[in-house]
């Protein structure tokens, strides 16, 4: 061997050792895991992890090539390292020798560095396998035979009258009733021509042992999903008010791994081909279920180690029975029936505590978040700008609740004056040379009948009683001269129109890209909020960028600084026609127009 080559090998080894030490130091400080000089069953992959593109599948495939058997994988979110647990010390040695400085699983084919460590980090949590199944979840393997599988698939395929559609990631067919993906519900008044195929009838005697405790004994709705490899379904619970308990799902043609989640708890369940999944009780109502869009699943072997399995095309038959009414389950977090119900006593409490609630959860919050809030409010909404453009030269326009004053400069030909309750926001507008004063929208210190135009954009939904919301409108009507017009925007409870999401919902990128669902976000939020002490009226906390579950809610505002403090703003989101009804109570006022604009209810009224 040449001297240069020998030198090269020594250099490489030195380089690897240096890199290894640096990574171990990071792991030690990150998660307090120390290296071990003697072999253990715990291996750290020092330089590759989720943050630089490694998947559990890829790692397992590489480990399998060494001949060593792996019983657990711990991938940590956002980390450039990960861990393996081997079945025996011998397996561990095989994996170490076979992969360290050999396996090219790093970015751009970079080689992986390994080290024995003393334990798994506490952060890694427990394996998502070997966990007890969610309560109420049952998997019945070999529920149908291969011959029966074929018969079922044939009878579904033959049925051309069924209701077909293609979703973003999978092909669906409905029997009995169509499941409407916009509203995530069914219309019980519109049954489909084709009921659940009688070819499925042989299944029901087989679940008789279980079905004595169920709400139903025969389903009236069937959804058939065809998943190509790589397809998945975002985590969700089946809408509580749509279907009774339980939900059944028959897996055909391929195994798949289904993820069940409740808050931070996550359980993976293998659904073998020809098995029946029963989701009842807690598993049906309080755990979301979903399938990751992957080509390869990680699955446990009978001996307890993990391996990878390539997916084939899978067809699932989901059998359900319509509820035809409200759900009154004992799992309110994801229950659409219970979340939308406004407790009767709440509006009375709100009216009683309106002043202190608004002080604490509106005024104080806006003052604290003023600068950050102002940064996010720069572009005028087009229809508001259009309203302002409609005024003649030298008209006097008052913006009630002007915030940072973004509308005050819209029309340069009018005298635009703004007022707000928040000193912090007024200070921002003041720096831009705007005409401003500080007041409350319930007592506007402006001469009666002196103003040509009034706007109040996203303001009166911060008032905690109908009387106060009406009072703010009354003040706008009072300051308008006869013939003067006001435009009022309030946040709508309904954030979807004609099956189109509002701009607000469209900002929820994780949901829109189907990386998660509103339900999962809601459940996480719920868990977070339970940890925070709360001293005000027991109002539900809304999950940002999801649909509103109730009308009176606290909406979180997360600061951008390192503390990531969460402030809660009170909102009363308006139902359809609610704003119009308030305007109708104003004397000497005529409603000129009302419309829905990107998740807001809007009215234009004129002083007679």
């Amino acid at each position: 061997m040449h001297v240069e080559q020998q030198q090269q090998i020594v250099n490489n080894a030195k380089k690897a050792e240096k890199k290894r030490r640096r990574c171990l130091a990071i792991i030690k400080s990150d998660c307090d895991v120390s290296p071990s000089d003697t072999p253990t069953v715990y291996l750290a992959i020092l330089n590759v992890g989720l943050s630089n593109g490694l998947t559990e599948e890829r790692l397992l495939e590489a480990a399998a090539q060494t001949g060593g058997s792996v019983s657990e994988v711990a991938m940590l979110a956002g980390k450039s390292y990960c861990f393996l647990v081997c079945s025996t010390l011998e397996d561990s040695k095989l994996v170490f020798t076979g992969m360290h400085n050999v396996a090219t699983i790093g970015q751009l084919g970079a080689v992986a560095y390994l080290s024995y460590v003393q334990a798994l980090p506490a952060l890694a949590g427990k394996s998502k396998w070997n966990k007890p199944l969610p309560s109420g979840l049952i998997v019945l393997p070999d529920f149908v035979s291969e011959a029966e599988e074929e018969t079922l698939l044939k009878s579904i395929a033959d049925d051309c009258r069924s209701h077909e559609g293609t979703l973003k990631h999978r092909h669906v067919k409905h029997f009995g009733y169509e499941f409407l993906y916009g509203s995530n519900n069914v219309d019980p008044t519109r049954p489909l021509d084709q009921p659940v195929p009688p070819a499925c009838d042989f299944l029901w005697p087989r679940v008789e042992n279980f079905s004595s405790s169920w709400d139903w004994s025969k389903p009236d709705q069937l959804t058939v999903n065809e998943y190509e490899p790589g397809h998945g379904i975002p985590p969700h619970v089946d809408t509580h008010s749509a279907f009774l308990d339980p939900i059944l799902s028959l897996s055909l043609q391929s195994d798949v791994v289904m993820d069940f989640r409740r808050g931070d708890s996550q359980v993976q369940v293998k659904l073998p081909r020809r098995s029946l999944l029963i989701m009842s009780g807690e598993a049906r109502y309080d755990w979301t279920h979903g399938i990751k869009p992957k080509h390869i699943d990680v699955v446990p072997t009978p001996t307890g180690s993990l391996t990878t399995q390539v997916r084939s095309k899978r067809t699932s038959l989901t059998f359900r029975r319509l509820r035809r009414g409200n759900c009154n389950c004992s799992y309110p977090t994801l229950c659409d029936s219970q979340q939308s119900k406004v407790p009767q006593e709440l509006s009375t409490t709100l009216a009683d505590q309106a002043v202190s609630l608004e002080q604490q959860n509106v005024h104080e919050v806006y003052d604290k978040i003023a600068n950050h809030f102002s940064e996010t409010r720069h572009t005028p909404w087009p229809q508001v700008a259009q309203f302002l453009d409609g005024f003649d030269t030298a008209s006097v326009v008052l913006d009630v609740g002007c915030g940072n004053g973004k509308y005050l400069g819209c029309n340069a030909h009018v005298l635009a004056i703004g007022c707000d309750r928040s000193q912090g926001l007024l200070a921002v507008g003041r720096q831009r040379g705007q005409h401003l004063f500080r007041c409350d929208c319930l007592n506007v210190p402006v001469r009666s009948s002196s103003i040509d135009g009034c706007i109040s954009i996203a303001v009166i939904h911060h008032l905690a009683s109908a009387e106060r919301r009406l009072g703010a409108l009354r003040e706008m009507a009072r300051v308008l001269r006869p013939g003067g017009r006001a435009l009022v925007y309030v946040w709508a409870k309904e954030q979807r129109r004609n099956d189109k999401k509002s701009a607000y919902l469209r900002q929820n990128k994780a949901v829109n890209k189907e990386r998660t669902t509103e339900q999962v976000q809601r459940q996480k939020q719920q868990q977070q909020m339970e940890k925070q002490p709360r001293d005000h009226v027991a109002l539900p906390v809304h999950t940002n960028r999801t649909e509103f579950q109730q009308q009176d809610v606290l909406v979180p505002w997360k600061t951008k600084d390192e503390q990531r403090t969460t402030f809660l703003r009170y909102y009363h989101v308006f139902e359809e026609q609610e704003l119009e009804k308030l305007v109708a109570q104003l004397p000497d006022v005529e409603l000129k127009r009302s419309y829905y604009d990107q998740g807001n209810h809007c009215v234009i009224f004129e002083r007679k």
Partner: protein
Amino acid sequence: MKLSTYNFLTSMAIKGVKVGFPLKLTISKKELVETEFNPTFVERLLPKLDWSAVYGAAQVAELAEDIPAVQPESIADNEELLQKLHHLLFEIDVLEGQLECPETGRIFPITDGIPNMLLNEDEV
């Protein structure tokens, strides 16, 4: 606060106050801000203003000689007066001072150019 804004402010929301206008203005610190003069704009704005408050503001701003006590009938051709009105209404920026309710004497402070017209719950 510009004196055009001042022209619209009242203290009528205070319990028992009937008119609350014009508010008594005191200027302790002001700044001159040059802005573009548009005679048509000033002329058209005048009918929306209360002349007594325009005149009152001129006195406090030490511009009483510029502004007549009674509103002239025709002003469109009087560009000199329009210019003076423009200066009074849009170029004088009150940074510190106060507004006082003519009926109750309640003081509304002007700080950093922003009048604070907020009332306490028990005042309304």
